[in-house]
């Protein structure tokens, strides 16, 4: 039964690839932000009760967990024991998409997840899940990090709103800046901060960030732009694909899922003003990280970043193809 479904899912995913970009589908006519948020809340409630039948899934739904096709009811559906209190939902009626970062428990242990739903005729046609596990033993995870930062919820005056394309273009500068170790490739707001897996990894000197270096332990103490200019992100080889999946013009939000590839070549980086700094061993091996990431754009600049991300085998290919860009 189950393996047949997996094959079907794989076939559907293969077909779903070249489909029309979500923006062109106007996939959820009559389902506004409130409607999409309701569908997400119903989904999360069903997930917590391990009751996929209650989740408004379309008959042909395609689902992944950490970039692997899974049958509904499989994976997290079999291990979740409850929801936590942190929950941050964003939605895009034009694309018919809604996404949530949320805390949960698996057998009583904290975990953090992202779920993105694609909605058509009020039924869920796509479920993309990323789960980060092992609170308590995984130092780089704090599942309860609420409340949601108010800056994300702030509605922009109409005159300050940017087009969908412009918002995505500004967001894309962030990934260019990381790939090039050059913050000038992006536009950063002076108050920019980034929270990853529940931990603020900018302007937070108390946190020694995995992927940074004991000798450069002040890196998490630096801001969004300054960190990039140290070159310590040089171990990130490529960020591809960059799937832009959801835009909220009224709040200046862009959400997507981005595949970070680390080939494991670098053994040290030359930090301007500090000289050669050895890479930590976690960075000196091949690995990928799938990153679901939300950007707040204000005054044409990146103002705030929130991400939920999970490590994956090197060169994991995402089965998803769609992007708004």
């Amino acid at each position, binding site marked *: 039964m189950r393996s047949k479904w997996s094959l079907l899912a794989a076939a559907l995913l293969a077909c779903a690839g070249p489909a029309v970009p979500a923006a062109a589908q106007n996939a959820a006519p009559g389902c506004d932000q409130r409607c999409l948020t309701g569908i997400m809340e119903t989904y999360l409630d069903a997930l917590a009760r391990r009751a996929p039948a209650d989740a408004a899934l379309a008959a042909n739904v395609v689902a992944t967990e950490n970039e692997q096709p899974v049958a509904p009811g499989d994976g997290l559906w*079999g*291990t979740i024991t409850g929801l936590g209190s942190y929950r941050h939902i964003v939605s895009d009626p034009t694309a018919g998409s809604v996404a949530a970062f949320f805390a949960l428990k698996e057998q009583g242990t904290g975990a953090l997840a992202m779920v993105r739903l694609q909605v058509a005729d009020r039924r869920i046609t796509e479920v993309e899940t990323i789960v980060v596990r092992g609170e308590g033993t995984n130092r780089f995870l704090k599942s309860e990090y609420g409340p949601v930062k108010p800056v994300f919820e702030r509605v922009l005056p109409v005159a300050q709103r940017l087009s969908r394309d412009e918002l995505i273009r500004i967001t894309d500068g962030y990934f260019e800046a990381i790939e090039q170790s050059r913050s000038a490739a992006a536009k950063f707001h002076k108050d920019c901060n980034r929270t990853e897996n529940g931990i603020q990894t900018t302007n937070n000197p108390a946190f020694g960030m995995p992927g940074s270096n004991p000798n450069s332990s002040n890196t998490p103490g630096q801001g969004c732009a300054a960190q990039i200019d140290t070159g310590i992100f040089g171990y990130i080889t490529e960020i591809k694909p960059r799937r832009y999946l959801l835009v909220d013009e009224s709040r200046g939000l862009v959400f997507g899922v981005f595949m970070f590839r680390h080939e494991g070549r670098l053994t040290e980086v030359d930090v301007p003003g500090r000289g050669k700094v050895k890479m930590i*061993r976690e960075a*000196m*091996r*091949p690995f990928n990280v799938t990153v679901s990431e939300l950007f707040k754009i204000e005054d044409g600049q990146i103002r705030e970043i929130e991400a939920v991300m*999970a490590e994956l*085998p090197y060169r994991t*290919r995402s089965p998803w193809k769609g992007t708004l860009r």
Partner: protein
Amino acid sequence: MRRKWSLKRAGWLAAMAASLAVSLPAGARPAAPGCDRACLTGVVDAYLQAMVAHDPRRAPFARGAKFTENTSILPFSEGLWLTATAIDPYRILVLDPETAQAAYVGVVREHGREVLLAARIKAPGGRIAEVETVVARDLAMMKNLRTPRAPIMAPLAPGERVPRDRLIAAANAYFDGIEQSNGRIIPFDKDCNRLKNGLQTTNNPDLMAELAAARARQTGGSAPTPLPRVQASAPPRAPMPRDCEGQIDSGAMGFISKVTPRRGYVVDEVTGTVFGLFMFVHRGDATDIRLKDGSTMPSPFGGQPWNMQMAELFKTRRGRIWLVEAIGTPLPFGARTGWE
């Protein structure tokens, strides 16, 4: 400048052709262009030397050769081809001229640190067409990975050898036994022992301490994380069996949901070894495992779904499993092998 070796499209064709060949019954299989034991040994040596030199031109590749590391399809310029810095002496070979395949298990250095590499190399006519590797990083226990156990590569006396089908059947029975928590259906030699990523996981009184040390060394990855100590609701009354058969028979491997697919067999009738690739699936949907004696134990990593790609090598005598060498890397739940 590093040359790009992107042979992907041709690789897919080669893989499809290979899977067609494998699906034919053994008798009907067209004979692969020959590569005898010396030829296969030379192929493995050339592959490792080319890898550590980061130069695929030093190994005899067929056009469109396919390479996977930990189930991902890579060019011969990434993975260990980029990061390997030395080849250590620990090495086991399984030579299978009938299918023109060799399997290698050995210790390799990545930026100076030891990793375990298991590789299945298919080289019809001495040209490498397929390379399927499992790399285990974050090794905790190196003491067992300095010298392979002496008998592993020694030829069996003619009276102790069995045909290849029986060797494959023994490996299959092993995984059937794990799935069914039934050690009695597995043909074990009385001296059976297993090494898993260098850890001796049978007949080892220090196993729990060594496992804890191994987990502490894990650096992220797709590895499941150990849960806080859970008190078993009905702790075992008697000490857990430590032998190959008893361990499986006790039910202690009940956290493994299934082992599928089982594939990539490389068989050496001379040494009595069989190597293959086996996908372990852990649904993680139970916190407690019920043992056959009625007691329970906390499921290792219970509550988290995950897969593990294992490469396993079974040394047999008289068709019975004697020495097991397992190399595994954790993968996300639902992960495929890269060779579908």
